[in-house]
């Protein structure tokens, strides 16, 4: 049995929904190559898509002068995704809890919650300017895979 395909990619994209689609497709490919099962692959791809949407929509606000910087890596032990924008910055501690009764009927505010639900680790780093999210999904040791 061959080992996992490891490798790192990093690229810059314009602040468009087409870029979100590119990031989503790249994440799905990495998850598939890593051998994730269907549910984990769906969750990882969705989390990365949500992060990319946040970067394009809330971070860069579709500004054509700004880019999102995307990193994808399979370390052999985890899938690591970084998505950075060049926006005003995000304070995650200020985000309302979408599960609170008073927020349940809001039309927005579930993206970061979904990301945190689907990934094993989520880290926020403030840039000057912008925000970088690091999303990590641990991979089961090769011996644990059926």
């Amino acid at each position, binding site marked *: 049995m061959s080992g996992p395909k490891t490798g790192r990619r990093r690229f810059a994209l314009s602040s468009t929904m087409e870029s979100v689609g590119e990031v989503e497709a790249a994440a799905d490919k990495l998850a598939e190559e890593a051998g994730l099962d269907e549910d984990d692959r769906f969750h990882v791809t969705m989390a990365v898509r949500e992060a990319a949407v946040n970067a394009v*929509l809330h971070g860069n606000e579709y500004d054509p002068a700004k880019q999102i910087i995307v990193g994808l890596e399979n370390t052999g032990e985890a899938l690591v995704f970084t998505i950075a924008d060049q926006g005003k910055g995000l304070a995650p501690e200020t985000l309302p809890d979408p599960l609170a009764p008073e927020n349940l009927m809001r*039309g927005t505010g579930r*993206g970061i919650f*979904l990301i945190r639900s689907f990934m094993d680790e989520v880290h926020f780093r403030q840039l000057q300017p912008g925000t970088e999210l690091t999303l990590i999904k641990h991979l089961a040791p090769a011996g644990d895979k059926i």
Partner: protein
Amino acid sequence: MALTIASREVDGVTVLDLSGRITLGEGSVQLRDAIRDLISKGQKNILLNLGDVNYIDSSGLGELVSAYTTAKNQSAGLKLLKLTKKVHDLLQLTKLYTVFDIFDDEASAIASFK
């Protein structure tokens, strides 16, 4: 796959058969427009058939909530039919499963509006 919406009438209920993805840029706006169109025409009973919707993102979830609220504010009812496992799991995770009336069977869903 982009969202397609087909509309049909069953015993006074407008059933919207949705197929594809409900995401930002790929269906959220279409769904919003379809609901608003029905509400503006005075339709009070709306059933969203999600049996062929295999992907909803946070924006799509928000759109479902907005559609529900829009309908309720106009004294209309909006219910959900045939959730795929992925959509079912998402609604449970976000506690929206408690908000909507959800049916697996169309006849039961139609009857519930009476």
